[in-house]
């Protein structure tokens, strides 16, 4: 029988490199939004720890590590990336499959903050926005989620439907930063 072929949000337009900076699409596996019900935040967090060894993150923070991560994504809400959240958690939190809703990028390289400074009003100075820090903000005109995963790398999540615009805008910023560097 014919099977349906899966396509990633940025199929065919990533990855690319500009002057040592790279933009790649990540397949982070399942993405589940977890929103604990009234009075269930601790129980939900305990359940997640038992399942994947990480707690539900505090506002603007993430927990876990690459491959199994939870990122804060709004008031009373987190996204669990990379691990399937089990049904036993359902009694504590609203679980919603978001695996196909997001395009996830990794922007990496020296001066990555300079590129992002053209796209988001967030203060991403390393002393302010440290590894593991998370923020919901704007990427251009798009709602996005930013996560610093290392000194020179960020993961950026945008709505799947906006992947092309996001990639285009990041590329324009990468090229502009590269052109400036060439000038100096």
């Amino acid at each position, binding site marked *: *029988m*014919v099977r349906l072929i*899966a396509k990633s949000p940025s199929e065919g337009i990533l990855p690319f490199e500009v002057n040592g900076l790279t933009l790649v699409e990540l397949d982070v596996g399942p993405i589940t939004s977890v929103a604990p019900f009234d009075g269930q935040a601790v129980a939900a967090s305990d359940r997640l720890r038992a399942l994947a060894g990480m707690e539900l993150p505090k506002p603007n923070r993430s927990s876990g590590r690459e491959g199994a991560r939870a990122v804060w994504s709004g008031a009373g809400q987190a996204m669990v990336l990379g691990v399937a959240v089990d049904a036993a958690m359902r009694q504590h939190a609203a679980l919603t499959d978001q695996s196909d809703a997001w395009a996830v990028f990794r922007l990496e390289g020296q001066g990555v903050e300079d590129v992002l400074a053209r796209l988001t009003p967030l203060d991403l100075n390393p002393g302010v926005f440290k590894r593991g820090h998370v923020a919901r903000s704007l990427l251009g005109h798009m709602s996005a989620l930013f996560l610093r995963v290392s000194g020179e790398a960020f993961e950026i999540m945008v709505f799947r*439907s*906006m992947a092309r615009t996001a990639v285009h805008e990041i590329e324009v910023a990468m*090229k502009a930063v590269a052109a*400036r560097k060439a000038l100096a």
Partner: protein
Amino acid sequence: MRIEGKGRIDAAEQIRFSFDGQRYTGFKGDTLASALLANGVRLMGRSFKYHRPRGVLTAGAEEPNALMEVGRGAAKVPNVRATVQEVYAGLEAHSQNRMGPLAYDLLSVNDLFPNFLSAGFYYKTFMWPRAFWERLYEPVIRRAAGLGALSGRHNPDHYEKAFAHCDILVIGSGPTGLMAALTAALGGADVILAEETNEFGGRLLSEDEEIDGQPGADWVGGILAALRETGRVRLMSRTTVTGAYDQGTYGALERVGLHVNGPAELPKECFWRIHARQAVLAAGALERPLAFPMNDRPGIMMASAVRSYLHRYGVVAGRKVTLFATNDDAHRTAVDLMACGIDVAGVVDSRPDAKALGDYPLYAGGEVIGTKGRKALSEITIRHNGAEQKIATDCLGMSGGWNPTLHMTCHMNGRPVWNEEITGFVPAPDAVPGLTPAGACQGTYSTAGCLAEGVEAAKRALTALGGKLPEMEIPQASDAVGGSKPLWLVKGKGRAWLDFANDVTSKDIKLAAQEAFTSVEHMKRYTTQGMAPDQGKNSNIGALAILADATGRAIPETGTTTYRPPYVPVSIAAIGAGAQGQGFAPERFTTSHDASVDRGAPMVPAGLWYRPSYFPRPGETTWRQACDREVTMTRNAVGVCDVSTLGKIDIQGPDAAAFLDFVYTNMFSTLKVGKVRYGLMLREDGHVMDDGTTARLGESHYVMTTTTAAAGEVMKHLDFVQQCHRPDLNVRFISVTEQWAQFSVVGPKSRELLNGLLDAPIDNESFPYMGCGDVSVMGVQGRLFRISFSGEHAYEIAVPARYGDALYRQLVTQAETLGGGAYGMEALNVMRIEKGFITHSEIDGRVTCFDIGMDRMVSAKKMCVGKPAAQREGLKGKHRQQLIGLKPVGAVKELTAGAHLFETDAAPTRVNDLGYVTSVAFSPTLGHFIGLGFLQDGPNRVGDVVKLVDHLRGVETRVEICSPVFIDPEGERLRG
């Protein structure tokens, strides 16, 4: 003329550029103005109104005269200040606001009639006949008076916007700014130092002055090295801070690629939004011009500019220089020029007790009362000791003292304060929260004072941040303050210009006062003083001093006009960077986008989304042909359409049902699991907000759909309702619009099509009308909803978005084998109008449930948002315009949406308006046009004939009122 060995230009790097088609050579580091002066070009433009020949007045951003068009073709930029633009290889500049060559501007005829062109002339003269203003007077006047022209095409150059963050922003890099930045950085703060020009150092680069025994420029180099060493200072040259905004946000314009012939990716400019916890304003001061008769000829410039051209660019603007001053500073110009062997023909100082600083003729207590030279200065006339005397000169430097550059402190409504000691305005204390002015912009004119104040201001900022205060040593420097005595106007024959950029003279100011425009704000608008690109930087204080004199008031009593951002002209290209063309908004693409484009569908915007309008087939020449075919095809066989753009909201929790009962007018707690119900929600004011279907997937799990346009609005509404009205309800919701690719499969063969793809076939029992549930489609877990927006037997099938492209292609291919195919927005719209289903064309925010005939959907058994407000008087009754259907009477070609409805015998005027048409379509099913609209007491007028009038499109016709449901009113097809 270039002085060898002087200036900071790179004499090793020659640069060729052109001005008005003439080729010239400059050096790296030159501005357009300095390079032209070095080439002996003094005539650089024509004045705004009188088209008088003008040369460069200043050496900085405040330049009012030397405005040029730079670049060519679509990328041409007008009103570029030659004093700011640096030369680069291939630079093309043109003079502007002229008719014919610059030297023989035909419009200079205006200068022969200055009495006719004084302030207020246009208002008084061109009043009658009234119609002439728009058609004749204004175009002619605009042609004659003005600035440079835009190309009229899209500028292809790249511009950008960016954000920056710091603890302390230091604005200006003269002695004050450098000391402030160093203190702040040593105190542990992250600092941004913004400098307007290409080099840090401010006036220290324009003067022959020592600090700590070193030449000023060398000292600057040492401080810059120290700043870099701290690793805490971001040095931003070519960056002008343009405005102070709320909560420590500052706008700044950086000239990134305007000084090079760079690659296309290199932005020309960057508009920064800098967020600073504290800021130090070290913007310095601008020299005050003197108002004396005929003070505007090319060759007359600011004395400080003469020094800037000499020390920064190694250029002198003349061979026989004179000076007219009210202070000691200007005398330094004479000393510096003589040191280079330039002939100084005299210094005229209005102060009787002035002392010469060198061996040059000094006319203490003298005044310049006239000048000569049509295209460039050749002679001045002075009055000294009661006698008049002529002096031959080709360059006159003038100085009336200094005005603190305090503009930024007024951006949040602060009013400057008069300081009698310096006879100038200084910033009001704490005019901008977190911004500390220091140095010359605060009225401190000595270099020593500036150095000390820079340190103090930074310490104040550090204290506010709770940081440590470093031990700072204040460098040794001159404590001379210039000793300026004010001289506002030199009396004599001829016009004395105040605002060079807008051609405003002292007479204009007096005329304004005489005609009762005595408030400084009225004077400004009457004379246009201060309204040119330089925003009165050179003329404001002089003008208001003359206004004060003319109205018998003191200067502080007269006050200043309001300094607003931006401090310098900012190109729209920079402010709107990234927003040209498609950059205006993000584009949202459905998973079926490529497949639709492959089939030749024109994509039309629906909010941020793009959806296929129709799918043309060979032989079809108009959209209507495709649309009619798609409707017929769908109603007779099967059609497929991507409906993923509709908002989808996942709602879970023990109180999910109660929450929906509160949000929707109708009941959802009674909905059975596995069923879908149409719902209507109201705003708090009782008007219809949105509609859609909501499916119950589990006991405490629903998925709501919204219209495409209102998806964000509804999400916001739900958040508001939960947080503010019903925090007691234990419910969570999140958008899943992006998670699911959802396609409607419509028509009598829809089930047949689906059963070809579903892993387990469905029938009318397992999936009855308004049923829903999980399905497996070609091995993928999906959801199926039996709902219809067309009146046909129809389904919506949803799969995770990654499979959207594949499923859509499968559905369309299968549909085609069944005699169907893809349909677009046009066909979708026709089918919903045929069925009488509403969209936001109908529920446009002004209609109630009653108006759309859904009053009974407001459940009497419960409370919901908007219910009480919907009961208000006036929102129900015969006077309301209510939803009706419209069909043509007789052979009518077209109905138009937006038309209004009138009684057939009534005049089609506002007072007789009975309603309006919201949606129209040609119905291929019925063979004629149909429409939906709202008519006063409409449902009771079915069968009546009214008049449809579209004043915009010139359509007038008769229509019959009918039920809004045109096909299958019993709904038999839906259940088939």
